[in-house]
């Protein structure tokens, strides 16, 4: 279980203060696929980066599995992070490593035996359907394939949690569906709890059981996905929904072509 309690974040750049998060409280239960939606600049990435402490809150506490991790440092922090996989919008694969070596990276970090790492990486690559490409380099893969490698890499340490920051927004709609299906399977079959950032309501509707809507660093709405979609409580959500409906199904394709 991931709990954020009254989390606030203020960025201080010289004499300019910017409040990116304001009194954010959320509970993400084990087994959830928890969606975080909001417009660009709303604070989605900032929020999620607090969960594995890539950012430190200026106020509030972060509690994971009933342990207050807010002030974790050094080894404790690194151990915590091994339990939280993360995937990124731009995939962030290591360009000079093969597919297989990308997947073994988190295992190398832990110092496991090499043979074991390779065996485990092959298993994960089978899971994401890319094992026959293990020798290739990221530059030799399509975007969808790269993201599947990133998912395999994020799963290497057998994490309980996985954070996905706009995992599909660099992909076309068909590839998006493949990647979303994979994330769903990982959630169902491996029991990995997911936090999924997206600005696409389609994506949220397809895979999330709960969603939170964020605007200007404030959570304006939170609940079961079907409830939020059927009966939005805040203006921001209604606006997002209205805009989502007005857009044709293939916005992602159009964005790619533009």
């Amino acid at each position: 279980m991931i709990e954020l309690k009254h989390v606030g974040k203020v960025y201080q750049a010289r004499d300019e203060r910017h409040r990116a998060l304001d009194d954010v409280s959320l509970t993400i239960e084990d087994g959830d696929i928890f969606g975080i939606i909001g417009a660009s600049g709303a604070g989605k990435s900032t929020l999620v980066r607090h969960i594995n402490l890539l950012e430190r809150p200026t106020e509030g506490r972060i509690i994971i599995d009933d342990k207050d991790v807010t002030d974790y440092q050094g080894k404790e922090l690194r151990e915590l992070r091994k339990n939280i996989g993360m995937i990124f919008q731009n995939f962030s694969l290591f360009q000079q490593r093969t597919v297989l070596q990308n997947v073994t990276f988190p295992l190398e970090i832990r110092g496991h035996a090499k043979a074991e790492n390779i065996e485990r990486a092959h298993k994960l690559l089978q899971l994401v359907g890319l094992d026959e490409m293990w020798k290739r380099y990221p530059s030799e893969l399509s975007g969808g394939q790269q993201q599947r490698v990133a998912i395999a890499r994020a799963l290497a340490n057998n994490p309980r949690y996985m954070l996905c920051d706009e995992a599909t927004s660099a992909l076309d709609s068909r590839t998006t569906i493949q990647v979303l299906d994979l994330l769903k399977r990982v959630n169902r079959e491996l029991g990995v709890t997911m936090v999924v950032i997206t600005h696409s309501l389609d994506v949220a509707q397809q895979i999330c059981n709960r969603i939170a809507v964020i605007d200007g660093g404030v959570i304006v709405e939170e609940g079961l996905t079907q409830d939020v979609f059927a009966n939005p409580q805040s203006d921001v959500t209604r606006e997002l929904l209205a805009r989502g409906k007005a857009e044709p199904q293939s916005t992602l394709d159009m964005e790619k072509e533009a």
Partner: protein
Amino acid sequence: MGEFLETYGSLLASGTVDTLVMTCAASFFAYVIGLPLGIWFAVTTPTGLRPNRAINTILGWIINIGRSIPFIILLVAIIPFTRLIVGTSLGVPGAVVPLTVAAAPFVARVVEQSLAEVDSSLIEAAHSFGANNFQIITKVMLRESLPSLVRGVAITFVSLFGYTAMAGTVGAGGLGDIAIRYGYQRYMPDVMLVCIIICVVMVQVFQSAIDWLARHIDKRKH
């Protein structure tokens, strides 16, 4: 031609060997000093792994001062230091010391620039998997910038190759020394020409080999 080779062949051969030894030895020692210095510099920048303004500023000064002293001046200015380290300021050993001192800050800068090219999102990804700083330096920064680091070796090598000619003028030997003493002072244009040809060929061969290597190990899209 045969006569020329008979008279100057062994002189030119030993000059070539001296030049190569000076260049290689100085490159090696310059990396021994410059590589860690460059890593340290990259790591302490404000956006680095372990930002430290004081250390970064001091390293920046050292690197810039080192690079701003003209080699010919450095060469004579540190003669006492050179004598202290290798016991002489003459010959190949006497040249390797100032060459190393001149090249180390240069290497540090080249290394720092290679490391700065590494996409910060990769470093962040490594953090998210629980990597420690040492692992990030070795497994991400150095590994991802390897092609660029290799290209840096070529730049260093070729610069040092040029510097050896200047060292030659103060008694280091090598091709530069031969070109000056025979080609210039005794006015022997054939010796001069041969020295130049050997230099050009050596630089070309080395540069091409390194370019090939860098391209070969670079797995990004070309």
